[in-house]
């Protein structure tokens, strides 16, 4: 048995060998370990802790925690395993992306396993790709919002760069390079079935939904034209653009119209009607990089499918009446109606009409490479309620990402951010890539 003393003596030698190894390796480049493989697997594991300060006066808290223990705060731990992989054979590739999550808090434990993507692609020529399977498309030039994201799940503006679950579809990609001012044209057709077992959260069952996007790079400006035919959802069309005005200043925009969009609207007494009209959404945005490596992103978003301040007031009044009755007489005939509306269109994030998104981030702050503090804010321009979130991100440790955020919501009664279930959230995660 090796004594503790002799082990201690060995440490300098071990350190020396390690250092020598590192020095020999300093300027070498072994390409062989990066050879393309037939099978690939990668991903990350993440441990996340969130501490929510609950807004017990908020309408969405009352609806969300109805029948649950009433808490002022909630601690939640989430473990995530995110896997991506590829299998290649000739001109074909099968790729997949799985997402598994374990979540524990004082109220419930939850487990969630999903295939975000799993699709087979064929590439007979560089200009042609044909795919079938589950695919997460990402249409639109907006950073936080995408009005022309017709065949994709909506973004979370709190984490716009996060991967999202796709839909089962058949799609293709056809690319041309005409040359001259029109440098590129690409056509992306999509066919998306909706049935009881497939894509059933997209819309009405029994439809094969067609959609397409045409992309063009014309005189240094990106353009997209998108269309989705009437089927599980109402028909819609739109376009976007993006271009650099200077090397450090980019502008982008999106515009979309949904034809005959049906929207349930309630009054304070719970009488619900469905209003049908064309709904137009759009956004205008910019991205600006300063000489000192600060990036500013700003977007104005007009949500044509959102509720006006008056309509939102009626809903909040309905919830208020419901829970006043519950408190006073122990029951309310309005409860089921309020719950359904809260879990439906009125409870979706960003259910208002006019929003401003702003983000500022500083690369290599305080002279520390890979340290990026940021702050972002979302403002409901109609009721002036808002959320401000400072963020610290550090990626200086090999394959490790550390992020700390504090979400701070501010708004009075009957306002968008004032009626959310949380008033503050502290969030910390460590993500390890492999």
């Amino acid at each position, binding site marked *: 048995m090796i004594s503790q003393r002799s082990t201690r003596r060995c440490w300098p030698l071990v350190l020396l060998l390690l250092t020598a190894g590192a020095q020999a390796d300093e300027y070498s480049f072994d*390409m062989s370990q990066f050879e393309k493989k037939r099978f690939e697997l990668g991903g990350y594991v993440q441990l996340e802790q969130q501490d929510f300060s609950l807004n017990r006066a908020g309408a969405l808290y009352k609806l969300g925690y109805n029948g649950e223990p009433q808490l002022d705060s909630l601690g939640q731990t989430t473990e995530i395993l995110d896997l991506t992989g590829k299998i290649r054979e000739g001109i074909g590739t099968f790729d997949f992306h799985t997402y598994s999550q374990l979540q524990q808090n004082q109220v419930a434990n939850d487990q969630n396993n999903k295939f975000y993507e799993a699709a087979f692609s064929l590439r007979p020529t560089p200009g042609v790709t044909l795919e079938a399977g589950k695919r997460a498309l990402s249409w639109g030039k907006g950073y936080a919002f995408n009005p022309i994201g017709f065949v994709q799940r909506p973004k979370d503006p709190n984490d716009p760069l996060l991967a999202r679950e796709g839909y089962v579809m058949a799609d293709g990609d056809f690319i041309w390079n005409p040359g001259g001012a029109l440098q590129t044209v690409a056509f992306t057709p999509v066919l998306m079935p909706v049935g009881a077992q497939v894509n059933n959260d997209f819309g009405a069952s029994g439809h094969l939904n067609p959609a397409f996007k045409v992309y063009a790079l014309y005189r240094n400006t990106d353009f997209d034209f998108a269309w989705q035919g009437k089927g599980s959802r109402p028909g819609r069309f739109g376009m976007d653009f993006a271009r650099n005005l200077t090397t450090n200043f980019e502008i982008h925009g999106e515009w979309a119209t949904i034809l005959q969009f049906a929207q349930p609207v309630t009054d304070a007494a719970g009488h619900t009607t469905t209003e049908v009209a064309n709904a137009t959404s759009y956004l205008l945005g910019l991205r600006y990089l300063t000489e000192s490596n600060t990036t500013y992103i700003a977007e104005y978003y007009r949500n044509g499918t959102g509720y006006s301040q008056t309509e939102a007031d009626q809903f909040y009044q309905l919830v208020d009446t419901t829970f006043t009755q519950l408190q006073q007489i122990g029951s309310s005939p309005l409860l089921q109606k309020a719950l359904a509306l809260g879990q439906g269109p009125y409870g979706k994030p960003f259910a208002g009409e006019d929003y401003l998104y702003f983000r500022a981030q500083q690369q290599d702050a305080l002279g520390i490479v890979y340290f990026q503090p940021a702050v972002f804010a979302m403002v409901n321009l109609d009721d002036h309620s808002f959320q401000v979130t400072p963020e610290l991100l550090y990626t200086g440790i090999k394959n490790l990402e550390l992020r700390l955020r504090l979400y701070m919501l501010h708004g009075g009664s009957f306002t968008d951010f004032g009626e959310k279930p949380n008033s503050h959230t502290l969030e910390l995660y460590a993500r390890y890539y492999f």
Partner: protein
Amino acid sequence: MKRLLWLALCLVALPVTAAGLDGTQILQKVDRNLEPESYESYRKLTDIQPDGTQRESVLWTVKKGRDKILALFLSPPADKGRVTLRLGDNMWLYMPEVGKPIRITSLQSVTGSIFNNADILRIDYTAEYNVEGVEERNDQYLLSLKAKTGDVAYDRLKMWVDKKDLLPATIECYAASGLLLKTLHFKDVKDFGGGIKRPATLETDSPLYKGYKSVMLWSGLKKADFPDEIFTLNYLPRVEELRK
């Protein structure tokens, strides 16, 4: 004595006149000696922090013509599958987790290192710069370069070029204000085969990042011709399938 001095001066100037090269021609030679107009290569970027800790990125790069270039990240795992594309003055970054390309700028750094996007997606010097002056310094030429437009990452370059093999030795990069942004040191001239002999190592330091150093190593550099379709936004998710 004056005649002798005049003769000596003429002899010093001889390499330029004998080779029949003016500044622009020297720069054109530098471009072609560094890389074929269309090529593929592997590069390793190492960022060395003041405490000695290092972070590495490995990229597969494909260039076509004077102004089309893309780079696929093979490592580290957090960046694997990311692709940067440059078409002239336009640059995009594709991130697999986001699923779409976003426009980026030449002064940003997708790796977070001293090398910015213009260094990683470098197109021909002659495509971006005019030669304003040439000086002879012993066995080197000193080229003074001025950006052709305001869209170029560095407004001015001072490039020291070895006379013998017409390869750059040192490049100083300046902002329009005259501020020195970084210095590039080319080292370790290596024969890559196929008639390509060029520095395999590029070191950079910057007064803006005191104590930090970044190193770029080349491997597998060879002539290659890829179709135009791959230099498009729609192709970026599939770039890796092109690698042999």
